[in-house]
């Protein structure tokens, strides 16, 4: 075998994205926990417009999805694309431009949302100047990522690794759907109106909205799974063929699902039916990813006892499998009639967001931290502690929302002996209180776990830096 010269990777910018991600994880889950607490104890908004639930909730979703999720995707995409193509980034400078532009955009996002500037489109609230800025950053990301693959040494790396396919899918789909849903008529610097109206506007919005889930929060994170699960488990991916089939079925399937957010509305019946049936047909393709990840572990299950990072990765796949079953069931019309507009939806989103997206990211970030800073973690037992805080917090959250959501749905449709509604809306709100408290506790646990992680990372990096200084002096 020839002497293999290890390629030099641009890891500085990856480190920056990684740290930013975890800082935003702590902030975003804190905002969410505070918003949840406001629902349980309304006095907590202190009559301050900027932190009322209506604004804080949007700040929470934007911080966790785009600030945490976005930074994780950028960190892992740049980490993976270099390593699986055996070369540094196409442009390290552009990556740094992307880093600073993205963080500046996120800061402005939090400020403008707190001031109440919003397009009022869920998961797409930013007003048009920021909207365009985010799209430009995203195009920059796509360009740098794509060129890194395009300019690889095709002799040494003839095939593109599956993790990169998923990032590709994410980059392309999010670009066009984000831009389509952003089409609007500006009337001033911070006010615009959607180009679409009525049910068309709602359909375009949820075409985007569900793909924020399907591509931003799923495809990219499957890419993460495909790199970090085999790396951490030190096992080969179970089935190449399975990865091909479930990749293409996700790519073709997800774009049909938006309509299931609009069952029993002005949306024509046939559009809702299509949304429902393709959703149901997506259970198996989704499970393909979870299955491929879990079967990769076959023969190495005992490692779960000792490897806390692997625990995060495998627990995330379990939650992924569960929420990709739950979602299609809720898309079916008869279930949707009960579940829609209730807390069940919120619970479903969080079993995906906390259980799948956050946990797979956390596992990946712990793995990357050790590689990037070339060190062991400051404390392995703190990772174990974090694992239990995150898992118990997530379970508290989703169980509370299952109970409260189903109860809400049943209370709204209950009739008394006279054939009139048995409960007023206010009574259904009052009945939610204990579950809102339970949800807030789940949030506190999850946020505490995130804080433990940030502490562990900072101590790890300090430890690594101290060692570097020692080596330099020796």
């Amino acid at each position, binding site marked *: 075998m020839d002497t293999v010269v290890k390629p030099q990777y641009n890891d500085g910018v990856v480190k920056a994205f990684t740290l930013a991600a975890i800082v935003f994880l702590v902030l975003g889950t804190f905002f969410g926990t505070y918003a949840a607490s406001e629902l349980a104890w309304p006095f907590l908004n202190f009559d301050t417009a900027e932190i009322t639930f209506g604004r804080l909730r949007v700040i929470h979703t934007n911080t966790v999805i785009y600030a945490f999720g976005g930074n994780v995707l950028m960190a892992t995409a740049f980490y993976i694309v270099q390593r699986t193509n055996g070369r540094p980034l196409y442009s390290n400078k552009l990556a740094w431009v992307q880093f600073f532009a993205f963080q500046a955009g996120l800061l402005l996002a939090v400020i403008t949302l707190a001031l109440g500037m919003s397009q009022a489109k869920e998961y797409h609230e930013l007003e048009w100047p920021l909207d365009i800025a985010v799209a430009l950053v995203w195009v920059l990301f796509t360009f740098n990522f794509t060129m890194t693959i395009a300019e690889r040494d095709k002799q040494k790396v003839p095939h593109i690794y599956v993790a990169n396919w998923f990032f590709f899918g994410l980059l392309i789909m999010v670009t066009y759907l984000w831009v389509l849903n952003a089409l609007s008529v500006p009337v001033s610097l911070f006010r615009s109106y959607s180009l679409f109206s009525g049910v068309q506007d709602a359909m375009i919005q949820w075409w985007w909205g569900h793909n924020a889930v399907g591509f931003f929060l799923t495809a990219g994170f499957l890419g993460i799974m495909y790199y970090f699960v085999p790396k951490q488990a030190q096992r080969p991916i*179970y089935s190449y063929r399975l990865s091909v089939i479930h990749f293409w079925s996700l790519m073709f399937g997800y774009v049909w699902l938006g309509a299931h957010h609009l069952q029993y509305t002005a949306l024509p019946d046939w559009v809702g039916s299509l949304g429902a049936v393709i959703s149901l047909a997506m259970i198996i393709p989704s499970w393909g990813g979870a299955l491929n990840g879990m079967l990769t572990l076959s023969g190495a299950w005992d490692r779960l006892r000792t490897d806390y990072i692997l625990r995060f990765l495998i627990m995330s796949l379990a939650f992924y499998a569960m929420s990709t079953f739950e979602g299609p069931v809720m898309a079916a019309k008869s279930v949707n009639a009960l579940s829609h507009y209730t807390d069940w939806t919120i619970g479903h989103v969080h079993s995906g967001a906390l259980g799948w997206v956050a946990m797979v990211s956390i596992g990946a970030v712990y793995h990357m931290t050790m590689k990037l800073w070339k060190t062991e973690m400051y404390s392995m037992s703190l990772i174990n502690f974090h694992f239990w805080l995150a898992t118990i917090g997530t379970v508290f959250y989703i169980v509370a929302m299952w109970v409260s959501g189903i109860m809400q749905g049943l209370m709204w449709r209950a009739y008394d002996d006279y054939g009139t509604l048995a409960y007023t809306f206010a009574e259904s709100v009052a009945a939610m209180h204990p579950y809102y408290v339970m949800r807030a506790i789940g949030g506190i646990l999850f946020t505490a776990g995130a804080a433990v992680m940030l502490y562990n990372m900072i101590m790890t990096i300090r430890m690594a830096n101290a060692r570097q200084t020692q080596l330099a002096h020796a």
Partner: protein
Amino acid sequence: MANENPWPNEGNTGHIWDEDIRELDYPPPLWWMLAFYAGFVMIVFYALYYPTIPTPTGNTKGLAGWTQMKEYHEDFETLNKWRAEKFAAQEQALTEKSVEEILADKNLVDYAVATSKALFGDYCAACHGAGGAGNVNYPILADDDWLWGGDVNTIYQSLVSGRVGNMPAYGAMLSSEQIGQVTDFVIAMSEGKADSEAFAAGREVYNSIGCAGCHMPDGSGMAALGAARLNDKVWRFSGERAEVMKTIAKGVNAIGEKETRHAVMPAFAERLGDKEVKRLSIYVHSLGGGK
């Protein structure tokens, strides 16, 4: 690369990335493949059964003949039929009789009250509080103090057409000292001390600027105009001195006064229909203060 496969016997595809990432050549599990194909079969059957496929003139209707509007109407019909079987007589009486006639029939009153809970809770309680207990700046319905009158017909009229309170803003007409004096007099009135000489200055203002015209010289109010009774402990807005001063200075729904108090009861006749408005009138009358 292919001839440098360090794991030649594990059945991988021969592609290796980042030193040790590789993929095995296993087929997907059989059950997974079968379920995957079953998904396509399900799509076909679903599309045959429900309206699913767009056509140039609309969409396929589906064998089930289902539409969401049809489902809605059927559910509603089922409920209506069930109600009609058990309560047809009562519902008809509510439709045909006047509120006064309904009030005279004890069984009918009981029925109206029993069927009003969610109606009142969803349409009225947001302002008037659960059980009509009132809210800050919104009238209590469960007492015998009425702005516009508490007989069942007047309550019915309040619901049918709504009410708009009206009191001029005196901020520009009176000095702040005068507003303070008349405020003290009005508060004294509510405490039964209106005759005390200590409030003579306030009484003078009260009588001279026209307060007595609507609220009456003794503060007993005038239901025909919705003018509040002042000589009791019940306050339409607040009995705090600063708040009473605000009411006098800024008025109620006073035109051109930006900080005026708003006091509007919406009209419910079109929104709920006459039968439901009658039902609610009886319910509100029964809350404790009906006359």
